[in-house]
């Protein structure tokens, strides 16, 4: 799992320590990736700065995007169950050699 926001590395590191996260948190301070992926929420941050709108992407081991969730309400975060469903759906869709129902 990887998280990305416009926070600086030290802000993200602070969050990691406070919440005890072990996954990497990347900093896109200049919004390069956020803009390229059309995920900017203009002026939605404190002092009117741009932030990223919430979005999740599930990417398989070949780099293909298998599931996208662009939440339409930033208060309602994606539940773990939704991600598990997406994983399961991916497993069934993945072209396994021989057995598709394992």
């Amino acid at each position, binding site marked *: *799992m*990887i*998280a*990305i*926001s*416009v*926070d600086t*590395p030290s802000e*993200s*590191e602070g*969050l*990691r320590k406070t919440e005890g*996260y072990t*996954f990497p*948190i*990347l*900093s*896109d301070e200049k919004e*390069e*990736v*956020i803009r*390229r*992926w*059309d*995920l*900017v*929420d203009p002026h*939605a*941050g404190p002092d009117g700065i741009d932030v990223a*709108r*919430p*979005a*999740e*992407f*599930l*990417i*398989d*081991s070949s*780099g*293909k*995007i*298998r*599931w*996208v969730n*662009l*939440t*339409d*309400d*930033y*208060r*309602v*975060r994606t*539940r*773990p169950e939704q*991600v598990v469903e997406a*994983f399961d759906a991916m*497993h069934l869709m*993945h072209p*396994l050699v021989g057995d598709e129902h*394992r």
Partner: protein
Amino acid sequence: MKRSWNPLLWSGFVLLLLGVFSYPLFFARFVLTRDFPWANLLMIALALILVAIGVVRAYGQADRYRGKISGSILAVLALVVTGLFCYGVFALSKRLPVSHGAPQVGDLVPDFTLPDSKGTPVTLSVVIDSAFPSNRSSAESGGSEQTVSTLLIFYRGYW
């Protein structure tokens, strides 16, 4: 006869402020009370009832209760604050951009390199290729023996 200062009116208004501000400060931290703010709406409803009783008493029993002017002002303020709360919770948080240009299912993910929280540059394609042992719960890892995947989460930051 000394008139009562109309405690229900004032405690109702205090409860309203508590009901509104406890959402971002407390209740929004828990999924159960964040997605639909029932706890706060309960407090606000109760507060509005108390304020209404206070106003009715101020006008209907003016010989026993103070608060015609303060009650009217507080009642209007209470309605405005309640309206703002409902707008903020039910409308404002949905005003997100449409993001039509975002990568879609079936696309190859665009590669990038960004610094992690310690300043080390991380390249997405490297992470994906190296079958990164991501921080998944045991429920998730049950279905993914064949496909080790990466979950990429963009969040607003500044929480």
